[in-house]
Every structure is written in C-alpha cells, then in structure tokens.
C-alpha cells in the first residue's frame, strides 16, 4: 500500500487497521459498517490472520476479550445498537486492562433508530455505555485520511495504556469515497510478554486476565490504578484542531463529519468579513477543555453544531463555563446540518 488511493471509508479504516498490524477481527454484521467485516473476511486470511463472524455483538466483544488477552492486535467494528450490546463487554475489557480497538460507525437512535449517519452516541462513547468507573480513549476523525491516521495510531495507544480505544466515526465517513494514503506504521512496543496469556514459560509465571476483586480495598486500589491511567491520558493524549480562532468573534465547535460541513460555512463567512473560527475536538476522551477555558478575548459567542440533540455541548459547557453565551444547532435521525443552516445560525448569534 503506497501512494494515494481512492477508497470507500469503511474499507480504508479496515485497511488502516491491517497496516497497523491488526491480524485478528471479530464482529457481527450491522449497517452502516458492513464493509469493514466484509473487507476483513477477505484480507485477513491472506495475511495469516483470523476473521471470525460471531453469533452476536455480545459474543463478538467477548471474543475481543479472549483475543486481546493474548496480547495480539485485535479489533471489532459495529454501529450504535451493536455497541449497546457490546457495552457490558467493553466494561470488562477496561476492567481487565485489555488493549483493543473498537470502531463505532454511528447511526441514528434511540432503539433500532435508523441506518443513516448520526452523532447521537457521544455520551455512550465518552461517559461509558457499560457499568463502572471506566473510560475509553475516544478518537473522532473528521476526514477519511484522519480516520486512517488515527486508526493506525489507536493500536499503539491501546497498548500504551492497556485500555480499549474507540474510533468514533459516522455513517457518512463509512460510506463516502476519498483519496487516502497509508503512513508507515509506528514500531510496535508491546508489553504482552509481561501480562498476556501464552507466555507462562518465558515469564516463569502464569497470566490471570480478570476484573473481579471481591475485597473492597483491592477493588478501590484497582480503580485508583485505572484512574491514574485516565489522568495520564488527559496529560498526554488531548488532541484538537484550532481553525481561525485567534481573532474570532464566534467560535463554532463540532467534531467528525459535522466539522467538515462547518468548515465550509466558516470559509464562506470569512469571505464575507465575519470573524468566525472553529475548535474541533479530535480526542473526545480525553476532552480538550483547555482551549475552551482559554478562549481569545475577541470571542463573544460559542456555537455547538452536532448531529444529535445536544451531547457534545455538555463538554463545551464544562470548558467554557459562563465566560460567553453558548448556542446549539443540531439535526438528528439521519438529517445533517447544512452549510446554509450553519451560516444562518452564526449570523443570528452575531446579530447580522
């Protein structure tokens, strides 16, 4: 894989995982991410890997548990209702400190909802769909190239923190075609021989992969260890893009595909002389609170645009506090905000 190639989103994300050294995929079909398991079922046997179609998302996430316990690079992909089914298992993965990559190509909800793109699972991704005090490292690409880059990085991050990493995409990203380039993969730095199943002889000690601690003192200590990792993520892994914010009167904030649409609106309004910029969170956990806490003095208003009824806005409120007013524009159910809608909304908050 060299040079730029035109690829469908889901297939590009799948190939990125393979390029990053992921040889093992366990999943269950669900629209709109089916091209990922389909691509994996063709490619992985070619490279001596394993593609296994589970009987359910519940089984798939527990296969990830078993696979991740060997210390190898494993991945699953799904979409919103499937991630709900996996959420119990995701809690166990975090509790047992197993590195893996979970790809969530979000569709509209609640319930069976629809199959068109949405961003209505921000809370589920960042606040945990499963039980217990755990966090996922959540990365939200805005373009396909960024999706490829972040997917390739995700495996190393999962191993660095021994924690699941979620790539939060949306149905647009999965279905669109775009030119992408696969960067050279970073060298693998894995501590698997220290903790994974299969190294009893080398290590002189067996592995026990578990999340049960009946002794309350032990469970509190285990939680403290997990929290220390999450604090380290907050120190080291915050990612965001700042676009024309320096002199902005209105700062728009959006992630994923919505941020691409918002960028077009900002370019149009800038050409009309309006001072508009964007802060785009890339890591949703850890969330980039600092740029929102330290907005330039020129900023008079923050506008949150999402394909949800208002979920990202909670983190923006935590960051911005009461410094400036915050407005919201959201479309849901597979509807998406248009460039014109966003331009109008910005003009209305500026009062023009």
């Amino acid at each position, binding site marked *: 894989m060299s040079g730029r190639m035109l690829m469908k989103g889901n297939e590009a994300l799948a190939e990125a995982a393979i390029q990053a050294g992921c040889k093992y995929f366990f999943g269950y079909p669900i629209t709109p991410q089916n091209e990922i398991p389909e691509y994996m079922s063709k490619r992985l046997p070619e490279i001596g890997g394993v593609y296994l179609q589970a009987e359910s998302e519940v089984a798939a996430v527990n296969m990830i548990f078993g696979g991740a*316990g060997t210390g190898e690079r494993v991945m699953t992909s799904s979409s919103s209702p499937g991630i709900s089914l996996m959420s119990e298992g995701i809690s166990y993965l975090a509790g047992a400190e197993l590195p893996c990559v979970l790809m969530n190509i979000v569709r509209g909800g609640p319930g069976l909802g629809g199959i068109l793109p949405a961003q209505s699972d921000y809370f589920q991704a960042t606040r945990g769909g499963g039980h217990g005090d755990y966090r996922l490292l959540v990365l939200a690409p805005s373009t396909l190239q960024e999706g490829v880059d972040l997917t390739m990085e995700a495996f190393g991050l999962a191993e660095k923190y021994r924690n699941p990493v979620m790539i939060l995409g949306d149905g647009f990203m999965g279905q669109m075609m775009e030119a992408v380039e696969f960067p050279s993969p970073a060298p693998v730095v894995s501590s698997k021989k220290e903790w994974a199943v299969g190294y009893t002889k080398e290590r002189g000690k067996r*592995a026990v992969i578990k*999340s049960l601690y009946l002794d309350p003192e032990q469970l509190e200590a285990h939680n403290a260890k997990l929290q220390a990792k999450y604090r380290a993520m907050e120190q080291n892994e915050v990612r965001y893009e700042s676009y024309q914010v320096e002199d902005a009167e209105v700062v728009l904030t959006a992630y994923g595909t919505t941020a691409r649409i918002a960028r077009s609106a900002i370019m149009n309004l800038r050409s009309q002389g309006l001072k508009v910029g964007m802060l785009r969170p890339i890591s949703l956990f850890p969330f980039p609170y600092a740029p929102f806490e330290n907005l330039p003095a020129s900023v008079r208003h923050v506008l949150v645009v999402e394909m949800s009824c208002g979920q990202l806005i909670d983190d923006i409120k935590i960051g911005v506090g009461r410094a400036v007013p915050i407005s919201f524009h959201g479309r849901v159910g597979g509807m998406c905000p248009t460039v014109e809608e966003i331009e109008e909304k910005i003009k209305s908050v500026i009062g023009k």
Partner: protein
Amino acid sequence: MGTVKETKIFEKPESMTDVITHYCPGCTHGVAHRLVAETIDELGIRERTFGVAPVGCSVFIYNYIDVDMYEAAHGRAPAVASAAKRIRPDMVGFTYQGDGDLASIGMAEIVHAANRGENITVIFINNAIYGMTGGQMAPTTLFGQKATTCPLGREASVNGYPIRIAEMLATLASPGYIARVSVSKPKYVLKAKEAIKKAFQTQIDKKGFSLVEVLSTCPTNWGLRPVEATDWLEQHMMPYYPLGEFKLPE
C-alpha cells in the same frame, strides 16, 4: 524398631495451586478441578494451557488451577476461548462452566462454539441449581425439585423442561467428543477422569469441540447432607441425565 519407609502415593497435581478452595462441604467442584489438573499434568501441557472461568461458584477456579486463566463475563467463556484458541492454536484451551452460566445466559455462545467446531474443551458442571446466588432454579433443575425461585418445585407448564445439554449438542455435526459423567462417588470419578482426558486429547488431536457434562452435587442449596446429596444425584439426576458418551471423534 527399624525405620519406617514412607512412600508417597497421593499428592496434589502440579497444575493445582496451594490455595484452599472456598467450596462448601460435599460440593464436587473440588473433585472436578482435580481431574482437570491431573489431566493437564498427565498430558504435560501446563505451560501451554489456558482456562476460562465462568461466573458462578467456580469463578475462582483461577485461584486453584495453576495455568493461564481468563475470567469471562457470565456465559461468555466459549466466545473468549474461541478467539484465544484461534489466535494461539498451539495452546490448549478449556472453559469450566456451571449450568446457569452455560445452559441459561450462555446458551448462544456454547451452541455456536460447538457448531463452529471450535477446537476447545468445555467442562460443564451440572448440579441442577444456581449455587453462588443461593439456590435459584436453573435450566437443569429437575421436575418437582424445589428452588428458591420455584418454591413448589419445577413444573413443565410454568418452567419448561430441564435441558439435556450433552444430548442437545450431540445433534450438531461439528463436535468431536461429548460425554456425561458424574463425580458423586469414586466409581464414577474414575470414568469422569477418563472422559475429561479424552476430551483434552480430542483437542490436542485437532478433532474439534469437546464437552464433558459433569453431574455434581450442591448439598447446601439442595438442603441435604453431603452423603444424602450423592444419593439424591444417583436417584434423581442420573435417570434424567444418563451417563455415557454421546459423540466420539472419528
């Protein structure tokens, strides 16, 4: 008086830890654990074996059997073992599951793992009751048998029929070895050991999925003394759950 020469004729298998088990008096989990550990020792596979613990009384099996172990979510051990074994086919993988874990919440996982012919071994403990949660009705609870959630005894019209897992899985084409044994009395224990060893050997020979259903006692939740429990197993469980081999490797 000459010196007495001592000969050790019985010892702990190498694959067991020195930890004292938490099981109730008269519970047969300890016997089943020992048979698994003896088998691992005899096959010389301790350093390349992984086990998957269930949720239930035997969740702590990883404290007693000294090999690589996973602790799975309730019922999901076959999914965990399927993936680990596919990634590490050089290892020997087993799950150890109770009847609530395997035959109730984990029914989908066990059926599909068996049907895929996953090259793993399942030790299925059937004591006809939920032990850890305190004696609730299991899918394997017998007709008329009382449990805390069927205080008048199980009835077909309300609770359906006790599930015969060994027979049900033996209808599938993929499994290599399926047997039902008991560990309630010494004469059964010897046969149980043979079956468990055969199941592991089936896996080592790459002949597909193997399962040994082990009829076991739960005196605490049956409300019986340990000796009465072994008799109850023989009188009530064995007629409904006949011992034997249901599928042999080709």
